Structure formats: structure tokens, C-alpha cells
């Protein structure tokens, strides 16, 4: 590990003025095994500081993008340290002040980083108790802590505050993550749902996002963009733009930008730039993409196999062959990418909307030719991420421009740029051959997943003969490998690949349940032994008031389930299909989720509700239209995301499981949303729609086909 990314403890105290600091070393072994990553630096992964005023500052490389981790991390520290939530200050995603972190994604903050943070707080509590023991002349076991005050049991006048203990101290502690954590039964702050820490700022407009940062003398940059990905710049005439008052023009290699103190003036100047482009011929579009993916994805590799697929097929009473498809889906966060860069005395500070401040810092350093320690990335609030803010083109652009013009520069993408440069959830194809035997049990599963990756690809059901194959594995790196398969850049999108895999798997299970004349819930339970999954299915059925019967019942009710990020989810939905035009209206969704210990129940419910509301989009309307490298949908007028009238009553039921450490919460509930709606459309109409989204046109066609028996 280089010095550039190591927190200098002496400098840390110079910055903070002393106190008691606790570092947690989260070695690479734990992260490598659980996150499947390489090259995670050996570093201190959490720290907190107790100041002489008794306030506790928590430094975390995780960022707040709406998922509520500012509050839940503070709760974890408050719980283990024994202080009031209100005495905690959070510093998130600042590469000069926070310990290294790979990024905020994968539902990992509470699951993976949480234990380290709690250990740091638990260790700090031990240190403080030891100091208090000396100060008060009483053994540690005779001491109690409440709201940052240590007192002797039965003698409340013998007391000392954390702030008094920290005063004048420069104590550092380094711990591993094995410290004894408080048990669920002891929880006072964890397990409760306090008011979110970010609430006051967010309802008053005080919350700062990257585009709200405005250093003195800042210029707004607008950058010349190609009409399509892969286009080459030909003739360029910037003379009209240069003549405009106050315009600074930058032309450096591939970067052509106009800058102005007024963002609208910068936009007008950009419009006056005349550029000619050579656009390559389009080879594939949003309709031909599926054939392309199957052809270009290469020979599928076997991911998992059990039993004997050939024997399973021979023993089959009925065989079902289905091909499922889904197009590219955009992240479309309400905040488009933005960054502000300022170069001051050789040090570059970049405020960026990024889910990965530390990797972004290193990429900026490389792009502008500075050492990493000469670059600081600060992450203000993010206006949504969903995986889409893991690349950092806008931050690199702002950094390069600030270096070139010598003034602070803001690059804030327009909505059109946001769509154009999105790294989409990949289009994908899943082919499944499955079978049931004469007893209505699944005897065969043979699937090939093209471009959706492995997450959720293997069914959770008890199937004796199974083979799952993958082609066109998702690789996110720098996108070049993916680009050889995909005409557009792709990247992680809330529960990457799992949404498509669950849609295919859970639709196929539903097809077999219907063919077997079985209730879809009963059919699932017949093939599931895992008690966690059985419990969430039962909990969903109770909340939903599930009435058994084979589909299609005409009622528009359905079930789907999934395991993702360590959480178990069962969803039940009720839909109506408008007979006139095929529009799907979702009236109600129940989600039962087992996510282990819950740090903040209301926060967890917000994530479940939000995931389902977002999932309505990929289920019902979202499919990016494109022709070659030309992105045809570039704003919300044609790319329709869920609106108020689409959102059903969503009931989130958290199935208690305090025996298990906290699991993922941001992603799991979106995984089965597409599947449960597709299954409910089948139950309502008898039409099995095998392509997402379920547009009115596809539903109408599906209904017509189901009536003529295909």
C-alpha cells in the first residue's frame, strides 16, 4: 500500500486537536472472500474520534445517497459507545479525512462495514472505561455508561463524562473486528427508528449536492459531445463561441469545452460550436440486440450442475421451453452527475457525486498527473446512485478543466448527458428448459443466461437435475470488455443482473405451477426446504391474505421470491389490466423480508418500499431505445419512470431474525418486483409475457396470443 492512501495518525491529530481516536483494521482476507475482490489495500477501515466537548465524530468512507446510512452508521456507533445519537457528527466520503473504502454499493454498508464500525465504537468504550476507572478509582466492572457519562454503580455522584476523559489526550487504538458487540437484547439505539440525521437539511434546501458547491470565481463548463457513441470528430469551428463575451474555450485532445461564469451562457456558447462528426453505421438496435447477445456472447460456461440433465428430460411428464428478454435500463437518478474541481497551491479538491470517492481520487490523480495525496475528493449528498455513480467521467472532466484554466470549474451534466453517458443495466436473454414429472414435481432445470450474469441465476428450489450456464458475463472494469459485447456501456444497476434472473426463474416456476394445476405459493413451498424462505413466504401470505388456487385465476394475484445480498424476500402483488389498452395497474404489493438483525426498522422499510417503487419502472415501462451508438431516449419525456399514480400500496413486512448478523437492505426487494408483476399479469389475463417491460402493446399481444392458443 502506498503512503498516499494511508491515514497519517500524527497529521490526523494535528487536524482534529486531540482526543481519543479508534482505528479498525479490516484486513483484506475478510473482504476478499466476501466481496470477491482483488487488491483491497490493507488499511484502517473505520475510525471515530471523541473530542473534549464529548462530541463523537465518525469518519466513514461510505456515502449517503438516500439509503439512510448516515443515520444507521451513527446508530451503530451510539449503541456500542453508549452515547446519545444527537452527540454524533458524521463525516462521509472525504478522502482526506476518512479511511479508505472501495465504494458504496452491493448492499454492503451495514453487512460488511457495520461490524468494523461497531467494533471501533466497542473498543472506544473499553478505552474510556479504563480511563474512567483510573479517574474514579473504581474497577471497570463497577462502572456504568449512559449517554456518554461514566458513573460508579450506586454512587451517581462519582461520575466523569467522555469529554472530560478525552480532554488533553492523544490516544490511538487499533483493533481488529472481533470486539464483543452488544447483543440484540441490550440494544437501545440500534433496532429503533430515530428521525433521520439528514432530514433537517433535506427538507429546507440546505443539503448540499456536488452541483451546489460554488467556490469563488468558479466557471461552469459545457463539453462538446458526440451525437452517438463511437462517433469521430471531423471539422470543428469554435470561432463563434470564442467571440462571445466571457467565454473560455478549452481544446485539449478529445476534450472540447466552453466555460463561463453563467451556466446558461456556457450552454449558448456550446450551441454556437460547429462540429462535424463521422458516425459509424449502426449494427444493432433495441430490437435486434437479443439475437446479437446470444450470438456474440460466446460459448456458455457451466456455472452449476447437479444430477443428470439428460435423465431429467427423459423422466419428464411435461417440458417447458421459454426465452426471456429484457432491454437496457437507465439509472436515471434525479441528480445528474456533477463535480466541482478547484486547484489551490498544487492540491486539487474535487467535490463529486460519486459512490466511489477513493477510486475516483486515484483515477483523477492519474488523469491530471498528480500524486494521490495531492487530490482530495469530497462527497456531498448524492441525489441517488443505484450503482450508476460508480464511474466518474464528470469528476475527471472537472479536474482536467480546473487544471487547464486555473480556476474552479463545475461540470454538471444535463439530463441528456446523463442518459447518454449512463452505464446501463445490460440487456439480457435467459433461455430455460424445465420439466415436471407425473407427480407435479420439478424434475429438470436447464438454463442459459446471456449477459445477465450469475447473480440470482441458480434457482433456490429443490430440483434434482439442474444445469445453469452463462455467456457474456458482466464485467464492469473499464467497460472495454463489456463493449465488445454491448453496443453501449453497461454497469451495476441496483442488484445487478438479479432482476432479470429473478424475472426468468420466477416466471418459469409460475408456468410449471399453472401446468401442474397447483397454487403458485403451494408449488413453491413444495420445492423449498430452506426455513428462512419458507418463513418469508408464509409471512407474505399472511399479510396479503393469500387465497390458494391454481393460476390463472383472473384475480391478478401472484407471488415471487428471491435471495439477494443475504436477505430473503417474498413478494405478492395484485394487478389489474385495463381491458381497453393493456395498461397494467399495480394495486398492491406486499414484501416480506428477512434481513437478519435490523439496525433501523423504518429505514429498512423505506428501502423496501423504494426498491419496489423503482422496480415498477423496469417492470412496466423502462427500456432504453437506441440505434448503434445513438441513445434515442435522453430525457423523461420518452423514457418514462414511475410516477405517483403508478405506485401501489406497498406493505413492507420485516421478518424478525435476530440470530443473524445484519444483511443487505438496499437491493433485495427490487429483485422480484418484475417477476411478481409479470406473474400477476398472467394470473389476471392468462397471458405469459416473457419480455420486460410489460408495455401495454406487449400485454395486448400476449392476451391475443393466449386466446388463440399461440
Amino acid at each position, binding site marked *: 500500500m502506498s503512503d498516499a492512501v494511508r491515514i497519517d495518525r500524527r497529521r490526523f491529530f494535528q487536524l482534529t486537536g486531540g482526543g481519543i481516536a479508534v482505528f479498525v483494521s479490516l484486513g483484506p482476507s475478510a473482504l476478499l472472500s466476501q466481496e470477491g475482490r482483488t487488491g483491497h489495500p490493507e488499511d484502517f477501515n473505520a475510525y471515530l474520534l471523541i473530542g473534549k466537548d464529548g462530541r463523537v465524530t465518525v469518519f466513514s468512507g461510505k456515502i449517503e445517497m438516500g439509503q439512510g446510512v448516515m443515520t444507521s452508521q451513527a446508530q451503530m456507533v451510539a449503541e456500542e459507545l453508549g452515547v446519545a445519537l444527537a452527540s454524533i457528527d458524521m463525516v462521509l466520503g472525504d478522502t482526506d479525512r476518512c479511511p479508505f473504502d472501495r465504494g458504496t454499493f452491493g448492499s454492503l454498508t451495514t453487512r460488511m462495514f457495520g461490524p468494523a464500525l461497531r467494533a471501533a465504537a466497542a473498543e472506544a468504550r473499553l478505552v474510556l472505561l479504563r480511563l474512567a476507572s483510573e479517574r474514579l478509582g473504581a474497577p471497570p466492572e463497577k462502572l456504568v455508561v449512559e449517554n456518554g457519562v461514566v458513573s460508579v454503580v450506586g454512587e451517581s455522584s462519582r461520575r466523569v463524562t467522555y469529554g472530560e476523559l478525552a480532554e488533553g489526550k492523544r490516544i490511538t487504538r487499533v483493533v481488529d473486528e472481533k470486539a464483543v458487540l452488544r447483543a440484540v437484547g441490550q440494544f437501545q439505539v440500534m433496532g429503533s427508528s430515530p428521525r433521520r440525521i439528514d432530514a433537517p437539511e433535506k427538507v429546507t434546501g440546505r443539503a448540499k449536492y456536488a452541483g451546489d458547491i460554488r467556490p469563488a470565481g468558479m466557471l461552469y463548463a459545457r463539453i462538446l459531445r458526440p451525437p452517438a457513441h463511437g462517433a469521430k470528430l471531423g471539422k470543428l469551428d469554435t470561432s463563434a463561441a470564442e467571440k462571445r463575451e466571457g467565454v473560455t474555450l478549452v481544446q485539449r485532445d478529445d476534450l472540447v469545452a466552453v466555460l463561463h461564469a453563467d451556466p446558461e451562457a456556457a450552454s449558448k456558447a456550446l450551441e454556437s460550436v460547429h462540429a462535424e462528426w463521422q458516425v459509424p453505421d449502426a449494427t444493432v438496435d433495441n430490437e435486434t440486440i437479443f439475437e446479437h447477445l446470444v450470438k456474440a456472447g460466446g460459448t456458455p460456461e457451466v456455472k452449476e450442475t447437479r444430477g443428470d440433465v439428460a435423465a431429467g428430460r427423459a423422466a419428464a411428464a411435461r417440458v417447458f421451453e421459454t426465452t426471456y428478454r429484457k432491454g437496457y435500463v437507465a439509472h436515471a437518478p434525479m441528480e445528474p452527475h456533477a463535480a466541482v474541481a478547484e486547484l489551490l497551491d498544487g492540491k486539487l479538491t474535487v467535490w463529486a457525486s460519486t459512490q466511489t470517492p477513493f477510486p475516483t481520487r486515484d483515477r483523477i490523480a492519474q488523469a491530471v498527473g498528480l500524486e494521490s495525496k495531492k487530490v482530495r475528493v469530497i462527497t456531498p449528498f448524492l441525489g441517488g446512485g443505484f450503482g450508476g455513480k460508480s464511474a466518474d467521467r464528470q469528476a475527471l472532466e472537472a479536474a482536467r478543466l480546473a487544471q487547464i484554466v486555473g480556476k474552479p470549474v463545475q461540470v454538471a451534466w444535463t439530463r441528456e448527458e446523463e442518459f447518454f453517458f449512463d452505464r446501463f443495466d445490460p440487456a439480457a436473454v435467459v433461455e430455460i428448459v424445465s420439466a415436471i414429472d407425473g407427480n407435479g414435481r420439478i424434475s429438470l432445470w436447464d438454463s442459459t443466461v446471456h449477459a445477465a450474469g450469475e447473480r440470482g441465476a441458480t434457482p433456490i428450489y429443490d430440483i434434482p437435475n439442474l444445469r445453469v450456464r452463462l455467456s457474456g458475463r458482466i464485467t464492469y472494469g473499464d467497460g472495454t470488455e463489456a463493449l465488445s459485447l454491448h453496443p453501449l456501456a453497461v454497469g451495476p444497476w441496483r442488484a445487478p443482473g438479479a432482476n432479470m434472473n429473478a424475472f426468468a426463474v420466477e416466471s418459469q416456476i409460475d408456468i410449471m405451477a399453472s401446468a401442474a394445476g397447483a397454487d403458485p405459493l403451494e408449488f413453491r413451498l413444495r420445492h423449498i426446504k430452506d426455513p428462512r424462505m419458507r418463513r418469508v413466504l408464509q409471512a407474505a401470505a399472511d399479510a396479503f391474505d393469500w387465497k390458494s388456487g391454481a393460476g390463472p385465476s383472473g384475480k391478478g394475484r401472484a407471488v415471487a421470491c428471491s435471495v439477494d445480498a443475504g436477505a430473503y424476500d417474498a413478494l405478492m402483488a395484485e394487478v389489474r389490466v385495463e381491458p381497453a389498452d393493456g395498461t397494467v395497474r399495480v394495486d398492491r404489493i406486499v414484501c416480506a423480508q428477512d434481513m437478519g438483525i435490523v439496525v433501523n426498522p423504518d429505514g429498512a422499510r423505506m428501502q423496501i418500499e423504494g426498491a419496489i417503487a423503482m422496480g415498477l419502472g423496469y417492470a412496466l415501462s423502462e427500456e432504453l431505445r437506441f440505434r448503434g451508438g445513438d441513445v434515442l431516449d435522453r*430525457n*423523461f419525456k420518452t423514457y418514462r419512470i414511475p410516477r405517483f399514480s403508478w405506485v401501489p400500496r406497498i406493505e413492507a413486512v420485516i421478518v424478525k431474525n435476530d440470530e443473524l448478523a445484519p444483511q443487505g437492505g438496499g437491493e433485495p426487494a427490487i429483485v422480484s418486483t418484475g417477476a411478481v408483476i409479470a406473474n400477476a399479469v398472467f394470473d389476471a389475463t392468462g397471458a405469459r409475457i416473457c419480455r420486460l417491460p410489460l408495455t401495454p402493446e406487449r400485454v395486448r399481444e400476449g392476451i391475443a396470443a393466449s386466446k388463440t392458443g399461440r
Partner: protein
Amino acid sequence: MKMSVQFRLNGKPTTVRTDGERLLLWVLRTDLDLTGTKYGCGIGECGACTVLVDRQAVLACQTPIKLVDGSEVVTIEGLARDGKLHPLQEAFVEHGGFQCGYCTPGMIMNACALLNREPRPSHAAIVKGMEGNLCRCGAHQRIVAAIEAASGSGKGGGS
């Protein structure tokens, strides 16, 4: 062409000398340092830039500054009074009517206009009234609950 535009902004008399065709959104965010009003789409499709002009919801990304001359403009920064949150702000906090918070100023301002128009809207009227405001985090049902609660308090209207 430069002109002088005078209006009341969050209760204070304000004069901006500028090109009258400039959009209210950018004048607020740059000249007046009020960054609570957000850019979301630039074409009036998402509602993130919603402000009140004479008690009605207006999309600041579609409004030339000259049009607010002589008007009363309220942005999210002007809703709390004397450090006390507006009932809608309170209700958004209480009901968790936000996640990332980026659409929140526009949501609250549009809700404010809705309650100015219709102090006790039905659930359906709230859904209809908020249809033009996009939220990607999926806080919709809590936003509706917050607006219902704020209207129930009988103090829904903004300035």
C-alpha cells in the same frame, strides 16, 4: 438585453439586473445563491425546480426571470419561518417523505401550491397533483402520507 427585475423573494424585496430571458432556476442558483431549487431535466418533465410564484407552483427551468417581475417568489429556503419548519416540512420529516433528498424541495413546493389551491385534498387529488414530480428513490407513498398529514393539520398553505 439587460433589464431590472424586481420581485419579493422569500419575503424580501429583491432586484436583479440581468438579461430578462435568463431562466429563474439559474438566476436563483447562481446570482442569488439559493441552491435548494434543483435542476433535474431542463424541459419541465420532473418538477425538481418547482418554486412558488404568487402562491402557485411554477417550474423554474421553464420560466424566464422577466416573468416574475412584480411577483412574490418563494423557494424551499423561504418556507421555514423564524427557524420553525413549515408543517409540510415537518410532515416530510415525520413520514420519511424523502431519501436522497434531491427531488424534495420541488416536492414540498408543489405540495405547498397544491394545499394553497385545495387545503384538504383527497388522496386521489394529491396523487394527481403530484404526478409531475418525479422521485427515483421511491418515497411516493410516504410523500402522499406527509401531504395528507400536513393538510390534516389545517395549516397547509404557504405564503
